């Protein structure tokens, strides 16, 4: 018998129905394996925009875009703005062309972090196995929690979604499946306020008709390569055997075949750490020379150092990211001899990487990241050759203290004062 659940009153129903016999709600979820599945992917719906709408109810019915100035990019677009074709990472000028009536709001990260923290606290009450994937996304393993909650995971999750709406004021979408891959896919299928289920038995047949690019991990470039091999649908990959996948698709073939079949052995790992910390900026006008790029890089190095410090991490290496005027992405990285939290060292390393990219190309975006990450206590301890770091650390400490007392503008290095204004 097919299990069914009313997502509004949480009643367990005898079977699929257009509406709930108990409360009359129309959000009835029915699936053969509904009460057997325990891996959930939770994704907040247009998170930043939802938080803003929550705080400014007059915007509820208007298209809202969260992002930087005219030449910035869209960070989040609400569902109304998405109807006009606006999506995240879209350059703001394009977004405003598509949706001129949109209300553009500069991101207020403190507010979003606070909302995310509250959602995460609610997750923590469901299971210890919560792995955050980003500020607004997490995967949960609810295996073995039925006895504790006196309800199967599907019911617990539906209750959680209502609690998030009630207590945090934003909506979420849930994907429930036997593994992380399928849960992630399901989470995207019923947005917003969604709850989609993919069972183990039906996984291959549910995935078969999809375009290969819809498989998580298959980007546009790989999708084009696969199309070149005549593989445009997931079902065509499923038709290969592991040997054929290896022969036709190369070393990654068997793994891709497994994903096409909906298989995924990754565990939900709550201890999984942040892998990189970064900061980036899009220019008001494209730049092509070191003299104008470096001031922006310096601001980013300072910002990155601050973010690392906040998370008690240090940079074991520096990653430089550039986007050309033609939207081609370049990333370059360099390991550091010793982990650092010093903006000077981060900047100097990034500047070395940048120097090799200055070839007349115009860039529209520059970014800087720290990877691998090291614990903050390993940072800037100097070594046999480097006797200056300790002095720099002392100076940086003084700057941080002044800023804490008098605000960020209280003190700046010569480089910033004379560099004119750059937007970060």
């Amino acid at each position, binding site marked *: 018998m097919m299990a069914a659940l009313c997502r509004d009153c949480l009643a367990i129903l005898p079977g699929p129905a257009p509406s709930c016999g108990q409360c009359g709600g129309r959000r009835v979820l029915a699936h053969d394996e509904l009460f057997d599945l325990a891996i959930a992917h939770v994704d907040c719906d247009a998170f930043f925009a939802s938080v803003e709408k929550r705080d400014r109810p007059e915007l509820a019915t208007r298209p809202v875009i969260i992002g930087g100035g005219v030449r910035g990019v869209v960070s989040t677009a609400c569902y109304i703005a998405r109807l006009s074709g606006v999506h995240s990472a879209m350059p703001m000028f394009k977004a405003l062309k598509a949706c001129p009536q949109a209300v553009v709001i500069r991101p207020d990260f403190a507010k979003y972090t606070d909302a995310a923290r509250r959602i995460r606290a609610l997750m923590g009450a469901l299971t210890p196995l919560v792995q955050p994937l980003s500020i607004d996304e997490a995967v949960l393993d609810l295996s073995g929690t039925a006895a504790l909650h006196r309800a199967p995971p599907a019911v617990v999750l539906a209750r959680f979604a209502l609690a998030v709406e009630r207590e945090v004021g934003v909506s979420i979408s849930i994907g429930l499946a036997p593994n992380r891959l399928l849960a992630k896919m399901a989470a995207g299928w019923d947005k917003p306020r969604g709850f989609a289920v993919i069972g183990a038995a039906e996984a291959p047949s549910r995935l078969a008709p999809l375009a290969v690019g819809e498989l998580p991990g298959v980007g546009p470039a790989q999708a084009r390569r696969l199309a070149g091999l005549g593989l445009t649908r997931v079902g065509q990959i499923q038709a290969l055997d592991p040997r054929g996948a290896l022969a036709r698709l190369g070393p990654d073939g068997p793994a891709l075949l497994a994903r096409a079949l909906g298989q995924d052995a990754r565990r939900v790992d709550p201890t999984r750490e942040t892998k990189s910390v970064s900061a980036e900026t899009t220019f008001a006008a494209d730049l092509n020379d070191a003299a104008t790029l470096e001031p922006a890089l310096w601001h980013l190095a300072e910002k990155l150092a601050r973010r690392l410090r906040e998370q008690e991490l240090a940079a074991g290496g520096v990653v430089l990211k550039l986007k050309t005027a033609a939207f081609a992405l370049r990333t370059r990285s*360099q390991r*550091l001899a010793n982990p650092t939290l010093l903006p000077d060292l981060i900047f100097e390393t990034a500047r070395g990487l940048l120097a090799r990219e200055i070839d007349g190309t115009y860039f529209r975006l520059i970014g800087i990241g720290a990877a691998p990450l090291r614990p903050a206590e*390993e940072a800037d301890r100097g070594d046999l050759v480097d006797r200056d770091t300790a002095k720099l650390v002392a100076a940086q400490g003084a700057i941080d203290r002044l800023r804490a007392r008098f605000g960020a503008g209280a003190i700046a290095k010569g480089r910033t004062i004379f560099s004119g204004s750059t937007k970060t």
Partner: protein
Amino acid sequence: MKFQADRASLLKALAHVQSVVEKRNTIPILANVMIAVREGKLTLTATDMEIAVVEDVAATTSRNGACTAPAATLYEIVRKLPEGAPIELDHPGGDAQLALRAGRYATKLVVLPTEDFPAMTAGSLPHRFDIPAAQLRGLIDRTRFAISTEETRYYLNGIYLHVAEGEDGKVLRGVATDGHRLARVELPLPEGAGGMPGVIVPRKTVAELRKLLEEMVGTVAVALSDTRIQFQVDAVLLTSKLIDGTFPEYERVIPRGNDKVMRVGREDFSAAVARVAAISAERSRPVKLTLDRNLLVLSAASAEQGTASEELDGERVHYTATPLEIGFQARYLNDITDQIENEVEFCFADGASPTVVRDAADTSALYVLMPMRV
């Protein structure tokens, strides 16, 4: 150009030159070896524009001339030929292919014009001296592990070779450091080296030179200027650019007053370090040394895998100073102890300061090691 050579001599020479050629293949001719017979003498030349190797090879020559052919391919072919086979190389000149024959085997290789082959000139090399191969080998072995691979501090990417004031007068010193450890080796000052400038010999040159020195017994003739160094090792002439940079003032990082001395047998110590460190695959994890009167406890811990420890007691360890705890990266310890014959001497200041390590029986080498926090 035409000559006959035996497989063993040709293979040895090709092995030397093919390890120098440019591996990344950005400029095709740099992957080639120049084979030249001039005045009845055969020489092979290879370069990556930083290093050049010119080697004389014994051969029966019958026609002068020169061509360039892919070094790696030629090496592979000669390597696969049966031992003892005489090999004939014949290049009629111009764009014609290079014919190689050995018994019933024959091959023809595409050549590139010798005119395009870059000549790496040494220029004038005003400082010249001879140094016994065994001494040079010892200097390299005891310093090269500490050479930095970090690009930002490029001036650490080699051995700093210079004249210095030793305990008993002037010495020739080799120093290498990556910031975490430092190795300093002293040799008697060779005649003629007194006026040489301090030079930084790049890592790749050090590696190539060390290979050439493997079986060498006599003396190596060294010639150098501010920008080039040249080593004549038997029939091989190795010319290299030097690193253009200033080596840091290393003397001030060598601690002078470290008075907590531990002596321990080399084999006991390095085996114990290896066993204790095996608990963790993460190579930056420290091994902790806990010292008490004539007692050394080595220990390591890994959050994932557990802990390990080993005791070395008074029969194997001599230590009479106040108790001490200090941590080092296991590989760094073993890189140093690998160079020590019998007994290792550690001179500590405290658990957080650089430590001096030496061979208790040999004062010519000194090592400095930065501790890790444990």
